[in-house]
C-alpha cells in the first residue's frame, strides 16, 4: 500500500473521531506550548546566570597569577607590556581589559568597611562588564587616569557617605607596607540583583597602580562573543601568558556553573515528565480507536491487507496527531515566548532570585536545540505510545469482523 494512500486514510480517520482527537490534540498542544515556554524561561534564567557570572568582572576567561585566588594581594600581580593585546581574533572577542584588584579598607567620616578596590580602564571596562549597564548617581569614572572613586550605592549607605565627599582607603602596597590615600567619591552605582554593590569600589587603574607602587596588573579579563570560543581562546592565552592561570567563568564561579548545568538537566526532566503525562491519554485514545474499528480492521485483513500495513496505519495516526499538535504547540509556545518577551516580573522574589543567580525580571530565551529535542521526544512518544495499540490491531482476525 503506498504511503500516500496510508496517510490519506489515517488523516480521514482522525477526522472521523474528531471530538476525541480534538481533545487529544489540545492536550498535546498545551503540553508542547508549555514545554516551549518553560524551556525558554529556564534558558533565560540560565542566560542571566551566565551573563551575571561573566559580567560580574569574571569575563568568559580570566588570566590570574597562580595563588591569587587564595590570596588576592598585589604581591601576586604580573607585568603586562604596553602594547599587549590578547591573541584572539576580533570576531570571537567582544573586548578585554586589565585590572588591578586588591582588598582594601575604606573609611568614611563615620564608618569603616572592608572592600575590594578595583583599578579599571573605564573605556575597556564598559565593553565587557556590568559597569556599562548600571545606573550611576553622580559621575562615572572618565578614564584610566581618573583618581576619584566609584562606590556601590549600598556600600555608600553603610558608610553613611555621599557623592562628592571623601573616603580614606587603606591597602597594602607592592612592597608589603600599608598605604593610605584619600579618594573623592565620583558617583554611586546601582547594581540591583548583584552582591557587588556592597563590596566593590572602582577607581582609575593608573592612580591605583601609583598608590600601590607598581606597574603590574592582577588580572586580564576577556569577554568572548560566545562561550563556545572559550576553549580556543583559552589555549591562545595559556600560550602567551606563560606561568599564569587561565580560568573560564565556570572555574571562577563554580556555583553559577553548577546552577547552569542543573538547569540543563531540569529542562529534559520536565520535558519527559510532561510528555509522560500525555502518554496515558494518547495510548488510551489509540486503543479505543483500534477497538472501535475491529470490524474495519477485520474486513481489511479479510481483503488481504498485510499486518504490517495495519501497524503502519495505527502508528501513522499516532504520529500524525502528535505532529499536528507539535506544530500547533510550537506556534503557540513561540507566541507565548513573544508575549513574555519583556520578561516576567519576579521582583517580589528579588532577593531569592538573586540567591538563585537570577535577575528580578526573567526574560525567556528560546533555544532552537531545545525545540528540536522536544520534537524528537514527542515523536518518540508518538511511536512508543502506538506500539501496544498497533499490536492489538494486528491481533484482530478476519473472523472478528463478522462476529461483532
Amino acid at each position: 500500500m503506498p504511503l500516500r494512500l496510508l496517510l490519506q486514510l489515517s488523516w480521514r480517520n482522525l477526522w472521523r473521531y474528531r471530538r476525541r482527537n480534538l481533545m487529544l490534540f489540545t492536550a498535546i498542544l498545551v503540553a508542547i506550548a508549555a514545554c516551549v515556554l518553560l524551556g525558554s524561561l529556564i534558558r533565560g534564567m540560565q542566560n542571566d546566570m551566565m551573563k551575571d557570572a561573566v559580567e560580574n568582572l569574571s569575563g568568559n576567561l580570566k588570566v590570574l597569577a597562580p595563588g591569587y585566588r587564595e590570596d588576592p594581594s598585589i604581591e601576586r600581580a604580573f607585568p603586562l607590556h604596553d602594547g599587549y593585546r590578547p591573541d584572539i581574533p576580533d570576531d570571537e572577542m567582544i573586548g578585554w581589559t586589565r585590572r588591578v584588584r586588591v582588598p582594601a579598607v575604606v573609611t568614611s567620616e563615620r564608618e569603616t568597611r572592608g572592600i575590594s578596590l578595583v583599578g579599571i580602564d573605564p573605556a575597556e571596562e564598559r565593553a565587557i562588564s556590568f559597569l556599562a549597564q548600571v545606573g550611576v548617581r553622580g559621575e562615572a569614572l572618565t578614564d584610566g587616569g581618573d583618581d576619584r572613586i566609584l562606590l556601590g550605592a549600598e556600600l555608600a549607605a553603610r558608610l553613611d557617605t555621599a557623592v562628592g565627599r571623601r573616603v580614606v582607603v587603606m591597602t597594602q602596597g607592592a612592597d608589603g607596607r600599608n598605604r593610605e590615600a584619600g579618594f573623592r567619591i565620583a558617583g554611586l552605582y546601582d547594581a540591583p540583583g548583584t552582591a557587588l554593590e556592597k563590596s566593590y569600589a572602582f577607581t582609575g587603574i593608573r592612580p591605583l597602580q601609583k598608590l600601590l607602587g607598581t606597574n603590574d596588573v592582577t588580572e586580564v579579563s576577556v569577554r568572548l562573543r560566545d562561550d563556545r570560543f572559550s576553549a580556543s581562546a583559552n589555549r591562545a592565552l595559556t600560550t602567551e601568558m606563560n606561568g599564569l592561570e587561565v580560568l573560564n567563568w565556570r572555574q571562577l564561579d563554580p556555583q553559577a556553573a553548577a546552577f547552569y548545568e542543573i538547569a540543563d538537566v531540569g529542562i529534559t526532566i520536565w520535558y519527559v515528565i510532561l510528555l509522560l503525562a500525555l502518554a496515558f491519554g494518547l495510548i488510551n485514545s489509540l486503543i479505543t480507536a483500534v477497538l472501535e474499528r475491529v470490524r474495519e480492521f477485520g474486513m481489511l485483513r479479510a481483503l488481504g491487507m498485510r499486518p504490517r500495513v495495519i501497524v503502519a496505519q495505527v502508528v501513522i495516526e499516532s504520529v500524525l496527531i502528535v505532529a499536528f499538535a507539535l506544530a500547533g504547540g510550537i506556534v503557540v509556545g513561540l507566541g507565548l515566548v513573544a508575549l513574555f518577551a519583556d520578561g516576567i516580573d519576579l521582583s517580589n522574589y528579588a532577593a531569592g532570585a538573586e540567591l538563585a543567580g537570577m535577575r528580578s525580571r526573567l526574560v525567556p530565551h528560546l533555544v532552537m536545540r531545545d525545540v528540536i529535542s522536544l520534537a524528537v521526544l514527542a515523536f518518540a512518544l508518538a511511536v512508543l505510545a502506538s506500539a501496544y495499540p498497533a499490536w492489538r490491531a494486528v491481533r484482530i482476525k478476519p473472523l472478528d469482523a463478522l462476529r461483532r
Partner: protein
Amino acid sequence: MPRESATAGIVPPGTRVQRARGVGLNAALAWRNLWRNRLRTTLTAGGIAFAVMLIVAAYSLQGGAMDAMADQATQLLTGHLQVQNAAYADDPSLRNLVTDATAVARALQSIPGVTAVSQRAMGFALVSVGERSYGAQVMGIDPQLEPAVSSLATLVVKGRYIVGPGDALLGSVIARNLGIGVGDEFVLLGSKLDGSVAALSLRVCGIVESGSAELDRALVQIQLAAFQEEFGLGDQVHMVVARVADFEHVGAALPQVDAAIARLGTGSVVLPWQRLMPEVAQTMQLKRASSLVMLSLVAVLVTFSIFNSFMMTVFERTREFGMLLAIGMRPAGIIGVLQIEAAWLALLGAAIGLVIGGAVMTATHHVGIPLGQMAGELARRFHLPDRIYPPLNTSAMLIAPLLMLLATQLAALIPALRIRTLVPVAALRVGA
C-alpha cells in the same frame, strides 16, 4: 403500600415519585462499570497515579530540601529569631544597641518553646598582622551560650573554640590572607562607641570553615565581655539570638515573643528568620511557585486524558443510557452513577499513586539523597547538607488525591452532561 396505589393510577399527574436516596446499588454498579474496559481504566487510573505520585514526590523532595536549607541556614549564625534595636536592620552600626539585653534574654527564655538564647555584639574592625591589614566583621559572643544557637563552634577545622578573653576564632580565608594560624597573634583596630580608638591584641585559638564565603573572608569571633569592654558598650549588645524547639513552630512562637518584647518597652524589635534572611525565604517561595506551575500543568494534562476517557465511555454506552432513560431513570441518576465511577477511578489511581509514591519517598527518606559533586556547589550556596533526607510530605499525600478527585469529577461531569440532552428513542437506536 403506596406503590400499589401508584400503579392503580391514583397518582395525579405531576406528583413526584419517591426516588432512591443514597447510593445503594449505584456504588457497585459504578465500580463494575469501571472494569468493562479494563485497559482504559488501567491507563486512566495510571495517569491519575502518575500525577499523585509526582505531586507527593515533588513536595516531599522540595519540602525536605527547603526545610533542610532554611534550618541549616538558621543554624549557622542567624538563629530562628533575633531581637534587635529597631534601627539596626537598616543601619547595622555600633550605636544601634539593645539597651536591656539581660531583660530581653530573660524574657525570651521564659517563653515556652524557646530552647536557646544568646547575646551578640557586632562591629567592623581592622585586623592587622605586621604590615598586612584586612577589614573584618567582629562578633562578640558568649562561648557558653553561643554553641546552642550557632553551629559555628562545630565548624572549627583547626584549633579550638573560644575560651578566654584573649581568644579569637577566624574565618579560614581571612586567616590565610593575613598569613596567620592557630597560636599566632594579631591586632584588632576599631572605633569605640564614643569615637575613640579601640585596639585589642588577640591570639588565634581556632580557624573556622563555615561554607559561607562571606563569613570565611571576614569573620572574627571574640568573647562578648572583651568586645563590650573594648568597644565601650557596657552590658549592651546588638542582638539577642534565639532558637525554638522546632523550626516549623517559629511562626507559632512569634506572637508571644512579640508581646514579651513589647512589654519591656525599650524600642527593641523581634525579627523572625524570614526577615533576617529574606533571600532564603524568597527562594523557598520562588521554588514553591515554580513547582506549583509545573505540577498544575501535569494535573491539567492528566485531567485532559480523564476527560477523553469519559467522553469515550459515555459515547460507547449511549444505548444503555437510552434503555435506562426508557425504564424511567432520570438523567441526573445516570450522571450520578458516572460521577461515582469517576470517584472510584480517582480513588483507584490515587491509591496506586500513594502506595508507589509513598513507598519510594519513605525509602528515600531513610536512604537519603546524596547531592553529589555538581549539586554540592549549590548545596553550599543554599546551606544544604551533603545528603538530604526528605521526609514524606503528608499534606501532599492528602492534597494530591483530593485534587485529582476534584479534577476527575469535573472531567467526568462535562461529557456526562450530554446525557441530559439524550433522547431515549434515538439513543436506543444508536449502533443497532
